[in-house]
């Protein structure tokens, strides 16, 4: 069992780094989804409040 510390450290670091990277992806995903939903809701709100000028009509006019 000589040098077991090095072996343990190597495998622990591999799994810790991968775990934190997956956490980083999931947290960022949650933030992005919330932001996309908020923007979509706001766009829908604007589309309903001004039916004469929907979101895409201004782009079509340019």
């Amino acid at each position, binding site marked *: *069992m*000589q*040098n*077991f510390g*090095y*072996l343990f*450290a*190597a*495998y622990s*670091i*591999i799994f810790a*780094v*991968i775990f934190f*990277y*997956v956490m980083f*992806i999931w947290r*960022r*995903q949650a933030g*992005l*989804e919330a*932001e*996309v*939903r908020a*923007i*979509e809701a*706001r*766009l829908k709100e*604007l*589309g309903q*409040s*001004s039916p*004469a*000028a*929907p*979101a*895409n*009509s*201004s*782009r079509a006019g340019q």
Partner: protein
Amino acid sequence: MAASSSRGSAVNPSGAKKARGVPALAPWLGVATLALMVASLFMVFEYVPTEAEQGIVQRIFYFHVPCAWVAFAAFGLVAISGAFYLWLGDQIWDDLGYASAEIGMVFCTLVLITGSLWAKPIWGAWWTWDSRLTTTFILWLLYGGYLMLRAMADDTPEVARFGAVVGIVAALDVPVIIVSVRLWRTIHPAVLVTRQGGHGLEDPRMVATLLVATVAFTVMFAWLLMLRFAQLRLRTRMKELRRQLALAEASAGDL
């Protein structure tokens, strides 16, 4: 079986999947990664025999080599994506290259750390400026520069084009790393392809363990790439939505 699958699709409609932006295959790849990792760990710590000269610390090899394989594959994909981006100019290739570079960087960092932890008890030093170690460190620096460029510069097509060129040039270091143990004097072991030809793994159980671990890391790479790539696509969609919102708010303000 058919009843349970139809119920599953009713509970999780495709519209909800689209809204989240994560492909339906991603959870299955996550489960496959977990199962293969458990199998790899069992083989590394229970199945494979201890190497006679180096002892127990040689078992770092079974995860060190797959980490290097994933890093090289990821950086190769950055170069391919970069070439397609320069050719077609489609944002999807830039997103794929960026996602792949980030994952490659994670695994290249793990290669350097686990290599160092293996070197200390065997060579008596954490680091030496050996040809393979040095060229791997150069690769890490090159893609570190690529990621810093992408993180700090504006998200413009010019920056994406520059990033594509950097990604392609940096990937040229990968074949240099692979042949470095043959080209220069080095203390790094040439295990997979020895200097005399053939491989240096004497026991078939060592080969089997390395293969299973390599498959596990390859599936994990596919899983992480799928998640990160989908996320970058969602970010691109969010930017488009922000632009639409700005236009809609401006037109609403005019009324």
